[in-house]
């Protein structure tokens, strides 16, 4: 993806390397320095594209709050069978004592 368009930084506040690093951390993605620059440009282009929507005249358009025009879709409070535990834990990377085993939660700094 070396031929990405140059983002139009005038249309929105530009995403800088720090924003990308922050988002990557929230999403638990490891991103290299080189990728920070590249993604800042690419995501800027995405924002530009979306920003075009803001230029549309929507004075006469009823806001869409949901893709499905329904409300109050509810189920009765009735318990139904759960999955067998063996099947549940079969999908886990690791299990112990009938539970999902996960790595240490707090890092060394905590």
């Amino acid at each position, binding site marked *: 993806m070396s031929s990405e368009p140059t983002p139009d930084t005038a249309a929105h506040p530009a995403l800088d390397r720090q924003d990308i690093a922050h988002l990557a951390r929230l999403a638990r993605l490891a991103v290299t320095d080189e990728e920070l620059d590249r993604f800042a440009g690419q995501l800027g282009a995405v924002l530009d594209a979306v920003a075009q929507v803001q230029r549309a005249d929507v004075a006469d358009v009823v806001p869409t709050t949901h893709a499905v025009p329904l409300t109050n879709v509810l189920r009765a409070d009735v318990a*139904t069978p759960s999955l067998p535990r063996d099947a549940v834990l079969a999908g886990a990377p690791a299990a112990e004592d009938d539970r999902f085993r996960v790595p240490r939660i707090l890092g060394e700094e905590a």
Partner: protein
Amino acid sequence: MSEPLVEFDDVLTRYEPVIGLETHVELGTESKMFCGCATTFGAEPNTQTCPVCLGLPGSLPVANAAAVESTIRIGLALGCRIASWSRFARKNYFYPDIPKGFQTSQYDEPLCTAGHLDVEVDGETYRVEIERVHLEEDTGKNLHVGGATGRIHGADHSLVDFNRAGIPLVEIVTRPVPGAGAKAPEVARAYVTELREIIQTLGASDVRMEQGSLRCDVNTSLAPTGSLEWGTRTETKNVNSLRSVERAVRYEMRRQAAVLDAGGRVLQETRHLHEDTGSTSPGRSKEEATDYRYFPEPDLVPLAPDAEWVEKLAAGLPELPAARRTRLQQEWGLSATEMTWLVNAGALGLVERTVAAGASPADARKWWLGELARRSNDAGVELTELAVTPAQVAELTALVAEGTVNDKLARQALDGVLAGEGDPRAVVQARGLAVMGESDELGAAVDAAIAGAPDVVAKVRGGKVQALGALVGAVMRTTRGQADAATVKRMLEERVLGG
């Protein structure tokens, strides 16, 4: 744990506290919030999970009608405005106990807003404003392995049980409560107490703090007296008893005062309460995690409670605790102080049911606040945990009222009831506890007392009638308290003076 603390009374000489509470209540529904998995407490780990509450790809949530109704009912009981349009939102963060990578919650469109709850402390009423009541789902439960006593610090790894993940959770958030001064810790406790009682009355949850079905985050800040700005608050997380709610506020007031006195700055942070010492310590810093990137949940359609639905729920609300207390106080002719004692002793419902079973309010109160309170104290249990029902207590009062037993024998009958020997009347029968009538047996005891104390008899005959009391005492002893003292006195009078 040796943080500097200011004496509590000293804090109030220069600072004013502001408190705030966030209370989480697990609803007592049969099934989870967005799937049909059962919600049984204490079930075998990971036996109440399915693709929805495990967050497996392709699964779709559907909201639980009973949970939505319970939330609206809680909102109504707190005088909230019920939103006519409300949506769920995704609260995005990573933690092993949330399988989806987000918690389905509500953000800017909660179900209920702008309510209040009045609480009373030492005869004064404090209004706690409710900011919002919203509906979300609980997380799974982590078990930390390899560290000291199950703590997350120093753990080698953790084990997760998702039975609790997805159980409907209602969050009730107060607005900041200023102006409580020295009573701030008690106001916090009184608020949670009253809220708990309301939710219990609604039947929306079993609100058992020790099982975590009601848990509190307690916010505390201090500002210099007279300051127009509030101080920086700390949030003490997951406080799980009423007593601890009070202690958390008290401790934070004393600790923050020491920080401010030393010219320091209170850090906005989450803290943990240590139940053993009543102190708090900083939790892990979550600076990054506060960026939750909320957005409307696309997999759930909006909730739009119409007026008809809300009115129907409002009409079905039971009598709320405050109204019930006022009514009972009037019906029983109690003073405000007497009523407070009854409530604080946890005896209100018991007395009410005892009266409903036929006892007089005065007798019911006397038993529950007297003998039964003593028994529960001695046994170190709550009144409600005693092995005696209000109906049985009413039967005891009836046995006394009809003269079958006196107070002392009634207490012995209670021994039998508590020991599982059956209802009071049956215990009286089986143990032979009925008051002795004017029988040959009692007559013999009276004669023996007269024969055994000629000096007393002489005194009585000589005009010192009050000396008769010694003889009455002797008869009561030989009959092991089973005689009726008035009857004994009359028989003695007849035989000493009359004959």
